[in-house]
Structure formats: structure tokens, C-alpha cells
């Protein structure tokens, strides 16, 4: 549980307060929306992908600090990257958040994104962190909307909210 203390680090709080790449891109050629119906997190992503490279990316939406900071840092991390490299990051981020990627022993490209490592100990919050990445994956593959619920659920069995 000591990781939890580290989750709300200044970098996450700062990205929540001042999200980077916030807004939408006019004339973007890739769009996707992601939402987590159980907590109201909602992300709209727009991108321009040219020659297999993410030229510009922006997001807007409502959500918790974890979701917003994750989206903000994600846009910074994938801007200028190739689609393949962005996909590798999506997989690595998912692996970190769900605990299947061991940051100590396995090589990865997560860098600053490791501030989200603590989320793996909070199963009910994993989806908050993953939603933007899930949405990015959908945008890269031209799916127009994704949800954290249902078939595409990255973390089945971690629904928030029933009583």
C-alpha cells in the first residue's frame, strides 16, 4: 500500500490542474471517445496521423485526476511517435497498470509515465488510468468509441460501484 502514497504525486496533480494538449484538433484524421460509465470518466481524443506518425494529438473530457493526468501525459509521450511505438507504449502502460509488466526486471519505454505504477495496487482505479490509452488504441485502429465496460474491458472484474 505504500505505492498509494506515491500515486498522487505532484506531477500527477500538476497535469490534472493544467492538462497539456487539452482541446480538440480541427481537421484531425483520427478520433475516438472513451468512457467509463461507472464513474463518469469521459475522454475525447483527436489526432493527425501522417505517414504512420502521430503529428498532433489533443484530448478533452471530464474525469478524475488519475484519468486526466494519464491522458495529459499520454499525449505528451506519443506526440511525434510512430504508430508502432505508440502501440508499444499502450501495451506497456496497460502492463504496468494491471501489474503484468514488472518495471524492475522488464525493459520498457515508460519513462515519466512510471508515476502511475502505484495504480496497480488500486484495482478500482486501474480503469481511470488506462482509459486514455484504451481510447488511443481505438483511435489508431479507427474505432470510434470505446468503453471500459463490456467485451473490450482491459481489466475485467474491477468494476467500481456496486453496493
Amino acid at each position, binding site marked *: 500500500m505504500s505505492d*498509494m502514497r506515491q500515486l*498522487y504525486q505532484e506531477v500527477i496533480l500538476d497535469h490534472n490542474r493544467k492538462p497539456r494538449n487539452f482541446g480538440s484538433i480541427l481537421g484531425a484524421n483520427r478520433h475516438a471517445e472513451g468512457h467509463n460509465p461507472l*464513474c*463518469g470518466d469521459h475522454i475525447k481524443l483527436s489526432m493527425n496521423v501522417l505517414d504512420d506518425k502521430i503529428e498532433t494529438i489533443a484530448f478533452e473530457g471530464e474525469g478524475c485526476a488519475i484519468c486526466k493526468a494519464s491522458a495529459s501525459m499520454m499525449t505528451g509521450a506519443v506526440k511525434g511517435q510512430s504508430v508502432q511505438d505508440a502501440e508499444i507504449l499502450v501495451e506497456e502502460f496497460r502492463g504496468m497498470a494491471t501489474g503484468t509488466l514488472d518495471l524492475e526486471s522488464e525493459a520498457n519505454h515508460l519513462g515519466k509515465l512510471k508515476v502511475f505504477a502505484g495504480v496497480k495496487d488500486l484495482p478500482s482505479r486501474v480503469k481511470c488510468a488506462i482509459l486514455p490509452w484504451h481510447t488511443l488504441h481505438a483511435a489508431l485502429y479507427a474505432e470510434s468509441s470505446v468503453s471500459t465496460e463490456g467485451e473490450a474491458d482491459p481489466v475485467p472484474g474491477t468494476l467500481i460501484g456496486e*453496493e
Partner: protein
Amino acid sequence: MKIERMAVEGMNGERKDIDRMNIERIRADFPILNLQVSGKPLVYLDNAASSQMPQPVIDRIVRYQRQEHANIHRAVHHLSELATKEFEAARIKVQHFLKAKESREIIFTRGTTEAINLVMHGYGRAFIGKGDEIILSALEHHSNIVPWQMLAQEKGAVLRVIPMNDAGELLIEEFEALFNSKTKFLALSHVSNALGTVNPVKAMIAFAHHHGVPVLIDGAQAAPHQPVDVQDLDCDFYAFSGHKLCGPTGIGVLYGKAQLLEKMQPYQGGGDMILSVTFEKTTYNVIPYKFEAGTPPIMAAIALGAAIDYLNGIGLSKIEAYEKELLDYATERVSALAGVRIIGTARKKAAVLSFEIKGVHPHDVGTILNEDGIAIRTGHHCAQPVMQRFKVPATARASFAFYNTKEEIDKLVDGIRKVQRMFI
């Protein structure tokens, strides 16, 4: 329970000192309250979701499993007779707890949800048809919405919803205006789980009866916190859950008036709910057994009986008064915080405090409070229509039990301040 009696006597004056002594004794009955969470003493303020279990109930479970367990209503051997006797004794405890006329009006279910589904199937499917109207309130938990929606879909019936005001109180004039010749059922919560509103159910039941409409009361949030008298309320059905009442999960109760239960169809088929079975015809058992197919949660029912004994030892009126004090204190302290809005400000409330902190998502609030060992509920509380009404995706909710203290509320307030400092 000697000290509790002292507190009852002291209720009219200097309650506070006596209560404090009393509360420490009560807290000592709950082993889980000694836990450390995130290295801090647990502050458990999620009682509306599930309450904790006192040692006497835990002991009762252990005694049953060690010395009394067998299947009930079946064999003639010693253990089966003993388990049957204890199971049926629990039913009588529930009967007295709800002040029901007869013990056969008490049906054991898996919880409130199953109790409501039982009424939907057993009564609704038999007596509600195309074009008929079912009245619900805007405050309902999903478990008192979805079954009726399923029935409406199946039968072509219509759901009508009693609206509420900005305080979270049902609008009684609008409620009365919903009744017409097509109205066939009223399903209503006694206390709202999301906002804490205590509905004026007695008057609402009387009004519905005036129109010949039977009423189901979802008492999940009421039965653990105040005395309930189903004969005085005159409700036709009353449902509650064991695990919100210091008992185990997997057990709940449906009270129903005998004459209604008798004309209802069974909910599930199986063993114990029959008198005789041939391949041509089955004769159903009498109530309550007609509605208790299969081997019931025997241990859980007996433990619920023990939980009722425990609460009676303190006294539900005393619990209600003490929890009111906690709610008033929490309301005063939280409403004094700038940037915090309390959602649900009904004049009559149970010990539920839903709130939002400006600029902070409730899930962040919940996770950060957890760092200080404080357990609250965040989310939509299975009452999405309530969230929609107040235009919030979710709320943070602290809900109190008689074993909570004002010191714990102080910790909650400190926790809220810490969240605010982090998000400035």
C-alpha cells in the same frame, strides 16, 4: 449491556459523557474496528454499503458450524432438528424485530434485492398487466428500479416516478397526482441510500391504500438504523438485508402480509417449497416455505437472529438518536468547509452524508482518504437517477453506524481538508 441501559436513562440530559463510555464498550465488540489500514487506525464510514459484525454474531456463526449444522426441515436426526429449531427461532426474532403479526409472514431471501425480485415475480407477474402503472420514487436504488423495469417490459406496464426537490425530498403533491385507476403497485425506499432522505412512508402507504394499491418498502437503509413496525406502517411488503444490520452477507428478509403471500405464485421451484410432487402436478408448500426453495442460508439466518439480538441489546431508538447526533455533527462540520457541497439536505435524514468537493472527482477523494485509513463510498451508489437529478457523475458518501464516533468525523473533515490542499 448494562452500560447501555445507563445511557438510556441518561438520554434526557448529559448524554455525551455517558455515550462516550458506552461507545467504547460497543466498539470493543467489533474486532475489525481495531484494524490498521494504510498504517492508520481504520475509520469505517461505509456502513450504508455494509456494516461490520460484532463478536457475539461471529461467535454465533462459529457455534452453529461447530455444534449445530445439518440441513433443515428434512431429517429426523438430532442435528437436523437442532438446526431447524435455530433457523425457525431466527425467523421469530425477525418477526418481532419488524413487529410482524405472524412468523409465516417472514421469508428468508439472499438480501433486499432478492426480496424485491421475489415480489416482482410472485406478485407483479401475477397481478400487473398491460397498461398498468407502477409508481417508484426518484430516490430508488437500482434494486428497486430494475426489477420493475423488467416487469414493465415483459407485461407492457408503465413506470411512473415520484420526483424530488433539490433537498432530496419526494414531492408529495406530485406523488398523489400520479395515482389513477391504472395504478397497481407502489415500490418505495424507506430511507435513500444515496442521500439519506427518510421518506414519509406511513402517510404514503395510507394514500396508496386509499387507492387500493399495495406497497413494497425497501427498508435496506432503515431497518438497521431505526425501529420498524410493519403493522403500524401497514406496508404490504418490507425488505431488508442482513449484512447492513451487523449480520452476514447472503441473507435478507421479505416481510409480506399473509393474505398477499398466500395468493402469490412461487418465485423459484425446488425442494422445501413443495408438499407433494408427481410428474403431473406439484402442490406447493404453505407460506413462508412456498418461497424458500432449496436449502436456505441456514448459518446466515441464525447469525441474522444473533445480530438482531445484539441490536436489541443496545436498542434501535437509542441507535437512531445517537446516529442522528453523529449526522448533525458531521453535517455541521462538513458544511462549514468552503468548496464542499452536501448533496441531500432533507429535513429528515438518516446517517448518510453525500458530498462533493469542488474541482475534485469523488474517486480521487476516496483514494486519498483511504491513505488515512478512512473508508467511504464513492460512485453512483447504485442510484444513477439520483446522480442525474443532482447533475453529478458520482458523489463521495460517508455513512455512519452506532459504533462510529465524533473523533472519526473529525478525521473525515481533516481528510477532506487534505484533499483540498492537494488539489489547490
